[in-house]
């Protein structure tokens, strides 16, 4: 026998199910509730731009978002918690922290993850982040990621592409990125973009040409230059480029773990030809 999680709700919804089916349905219901808790430790700015820097191809988003946080001296304002994340914490300044944290300034919120988000949690993450963005009347969700290219070594200035949740955002790009018209986006950013489109939350995903499984500070710099242009900021990327070798080495292990998760989510699907029909 299983005890109902929410007795009245379960009975109401599964009135005609027998006991076994009721238990299966209930466990499913419980698992659906196992998403992320967003813990706010300081007030979150309303109508802000939300930047996402999750571990991805070339760690472009993570490196770029880290640089934004340090350059603009953003304050830590919260974290994302989930019992389904790997059992780990990160120590910063000797204090235990969640590996998925939220930083904010006057009109900017940055979500950054210092751990690879398991594939099974990507959908709850996208849903919960968009719901939270809506509750804060977020003006724009701007996700930063990489787009692996085979000849990355031969590219001096990585090009930035943008996937947008609605057509009118094209003008918002201010020439910083070329709009992707067709293709696949695999992973958290694809799900986020789709969820934003459904919820009418304006969203842009910037994908910068990068190495697939090597940390790419140069690509992160190119991504930041696009962010500067879109948001009218002037974040200096010279320090990021100067410390390029150190950053590549420091993030080697993170890249290795990210690569394993990218393989699980079939990231290579992104390099398939676009669908035949729009």
């Amino acid at each position: 026998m299983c005890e109902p999680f929410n007795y009245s709700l379960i009975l109401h919804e599964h009135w005609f199910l027998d006991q076994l089916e009721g238990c299966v349905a209930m466990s499913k219901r419980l698992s659906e509730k196992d998403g992320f808790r967003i813990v706010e430790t300081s007030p979150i700015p309303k109508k802000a731009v939300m930047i996402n820097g999750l571990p991805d191809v070339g760690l472009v988003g993570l490196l770029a978002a880290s640089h934004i946080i340090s350059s603009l001296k953003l304050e830590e304002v919260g974290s994302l918690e989930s019992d389904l994340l790997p059992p780990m914490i990160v120590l910063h300044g000797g204090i235990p922290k969640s590996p998925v944290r939220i930083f904010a300034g006057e009109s900017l919120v940055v979500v950054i993850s210092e751990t690879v988000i398991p594939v099974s949690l990507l959908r709850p993450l996208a849903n919960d982040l968009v719901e939270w963005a809506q509750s804060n009347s977020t003006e724009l969700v701007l996700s930063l990621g990489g787009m692996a290219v085979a000849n990355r070594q031969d590219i001096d200035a990585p090009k930035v592409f943008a996937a947008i949740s609605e057509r009118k955002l094209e003008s918002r790009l201010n020439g910083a990125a070329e709009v992707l018209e067709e293709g696949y986006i695999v992973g958290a950013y694809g799900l986020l973009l789709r969820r934003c489109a459904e919820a009418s939350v304006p969203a842009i995903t910037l994908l910068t040409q990068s190495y697939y499984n090597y940390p790419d500070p140069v690509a992160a710099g190119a991504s930041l230059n696009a962010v500067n242009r879109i948001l009218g900021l002037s974040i200096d990327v010279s320090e990021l480029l100067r410390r390029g070798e150190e950053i590549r080495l420091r993030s080697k292990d993170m890249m290795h773990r990210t690569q394993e998760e990218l393989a699980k989510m079939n990231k290579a699907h992104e390099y398939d030809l676009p669908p035949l029909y729009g």
Partner: protein
Amino acid sequence: MESVASPETSLYHSSGWNVAAACIEPLHNIMVAATEVVLTIDLPYVDQKQVKLRCPANDILEVYADTTRKITFRELGAKHRHGEFTCYHARIRIPVPVDESRINKHFKRGVLEVHLPRLR
């Protein structure tokens, strides 16, 4: 692709850090194309003159590269760990037969690219 276990495996930390040999295992990638196998290896802090390749067996490529300077855990932010490294070392299994006598390499932006023609 898998790296080949070496006798020193037990000395490796999870980050591929061989304390005894002061070596670290670099990130690498392998692509098998119709006519060749293309390997890339990420080698920050390396000068291309320091890169050495050898094939100890038909299906293994070994890469050695000294770093331009000694690098410690501490400077990479791990104050609780002691150790340093001065070279990269990787033994990479080649999944298909190749002609190692026609190996071709180039080094750009700190990434080594190795081309090995496939045997027909």
